[in-house]
């Protein structure tokens, strides 16, 4: 199957300035410190990592809510950082987002029919009838009933709200959908429904998903490629099977070992990481993971490793597992 690259990011960085009181110099928080990846049509790239690793910052950059501090981001070969306003508006409709919290992502004063019409209202010059028809078709597609058109968000359950959020994201026929932990706020029983809906829609519209999650069992279910992040850095990247069967980075291994498996006979080999992730304002010298790593060698304290090929994946580690 030939894959068509739709989004390219290289060396994407986003720094925030943080005030530390009036008498101290402003600090630089490196929320995202160089991410390079590509997204292909019809594929899902999952981004995993613990809180504060830059997953959501990445989502905000890809959806153009924020501009990157440095690096390049292009959709279908058009650089969106340097693009003029009109091009940006056009490209913006190609990337949509579904948020984690279905309670916060819908306007409480807007009927859902109107919420779904809004993207068409502000971006196209479709007539009212055409818009209503498009909305009803989309509602049908995501499993909402037509009579729910005139209801307000507070009258829906979490799973239904997430369906509405997905429907709204798809109203403009995007090519890329950023899913920022789309199921982690939902009940486990509802999670599967939403995930299956997302997979159906991906096949139907040939969508590229950037799937952000910290739930590895969910990632295993949906991802084609996986990108593991730690403190704003990409530390391992590869196909789902490569990452799940042969994790190379000690951090990835620890993450995977923390995933609960529904098999009581399976021997549990949990690798527990000690300590907290270091502050992104003042990261440790050398590899950012060195204070919590069990496989450190001398060079780990001197230099941050580059992302380099290792087996089927690419790993940023001086001493990857299974390499010695």
């Amino acid at each position, binding site marked *: 199957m030939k894959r068509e690259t739709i989004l390219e990011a290289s060396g994407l960085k986003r720094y925030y300035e943080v005030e530390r009181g009036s008498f101290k110099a402003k600090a630089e928080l490196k929320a995202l410190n160089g991410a390079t990846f590509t997204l292909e049509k019809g594929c899902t790239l999952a981004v995993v990592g613990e809180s504060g690793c830059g997953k959501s910052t990445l989502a905000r950059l890809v959806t153009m809510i924020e501009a990157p501090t440095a690096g390049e981001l292009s959709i279908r070969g058009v650089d969106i950082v340097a693009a003029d306003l009109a091009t940006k508006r056009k490209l*913006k409709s190609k990337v949509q987002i579904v948020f984690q*919290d279905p309670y916060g992502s819908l*306007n409480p004063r807007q009927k859902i029919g109107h919420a779904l019409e809004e993207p068409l209202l*502000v971006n196209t010059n479709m007539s009212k009838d055409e818009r209503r028809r498009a909305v009803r078709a989309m509602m049908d597609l995501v*499993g909402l009933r037509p009579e729910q058109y005139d209801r*307000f968000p507070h*009258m*829906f359950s979490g799973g*239904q709200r997430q369906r509405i959020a997905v429907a709204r994201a798809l109203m403009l026929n995007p090519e890329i959908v950023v899913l920022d932990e789309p199921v982690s706020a939902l009940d486990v029983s509802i999670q599967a*429904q939403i995930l299956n809906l997302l997979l159906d829609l991906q096949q139907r519209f040939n969508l590229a998903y950037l799937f952000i999650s910290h739930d590895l069992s969910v990632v295993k279910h949906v991802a084609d490629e996986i990108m593991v992040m730690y403190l704003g850095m990409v530390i391992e990247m590869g196909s789902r099977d490569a990452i799940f069967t042969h994790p190379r980075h000690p951090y990835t291994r620890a993450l995977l070992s923390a995933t609960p498996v529904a098999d009581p006979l399976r021997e549990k080999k949990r690798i527990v990481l000690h300590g907290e992730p270091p502050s992104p304002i003042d990261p440790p010298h050398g590899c950012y993971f060195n204070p919590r790593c069990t496989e450190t060698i001398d060079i780990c304290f001197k230099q941050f490793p580059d992302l380099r090929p290792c087996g089927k994946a690419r790993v940023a580690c001086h001493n990857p597992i299974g390499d010695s």
Partner: protein
Amino acid sequence: MAELTYNQGLDTRQSGRLELLKEFWRYFSENRGAVIGLIFFVVIIIIAVFADLIAPHLPNHQYRDAFLQPPFWQEGGSVKFILGTDAVGRDMLSRLIHGARYSLFIGCVVVSLALIVGVSLGLIAGFFRGWIDTTIMRLMDIVLSFPSLLLALVLVAILGPSLVNAMIAIAIVQQPHYVRLTRAAVMGEMSKDYVTAARVIGVRRLRLMFVTILPNCMAPLIVQAALSFSTAILDAAALGFLGMGAQPPTPEWGTMLAEAREFILRAWWVVTFPGCAILFTVLAINLMGDGLRDALDPKLKSS
């Protein structure tokens, strides 16, 4: 499977708005004071609207044979002038009834003026932040740093004493409260996902400000509007009393008080009735505003 279970947990309530209104009334009617206030307020509105029909006499007609006549139950009073007459023989009751018009008019104009300007400024400040925010808020701080009635007095002195100028002055004095409230509410809403979602969809700034964000900030503003309605009436009465508001012979309650000042010792009714009119109207509106606040904003609820 998804098709089978998608409608679970659905709220089967019929229509959103009617239901919201019913729920609002349930909370509102829990507060007895608020309901009494509302009833009183509605009565005043009716009186003001039908003042010409209800009032037994013309408000400015002088009965030369009945100067300072006491209310009917006192010796020397007559049923012709139920609440007595003032120093130039005008019927107190008719003047009070017509005065209700002025009070409501003042309240409406001042609140609308302050609301429109204040909400716009607050929305701009909260939405754009940065230097625009700083400029607007410091200006409002300056307005707030004067005692409100004093500032209103100064403004009327500059603009010239009249009812319209008094209303403008009071609106200017009141508007910082709206700016602050709106700004705080807007800043709270701005951080929510639905605003970001609207941006990603491509909603432009003006629509984002007025269609997406503003309706979600209305609850505290409605309460503030209701409460400052009474402040406006009170301030206008105070300005009228000081001779800076409505000019005689307008039957405005504050102005009536001012005209009656010299008769306080001789004819109690010429001061007491306009005073009571102001007192009860303001009290009713405040009670109503409190109930409104409790019903609309559970976070502000006083236990």
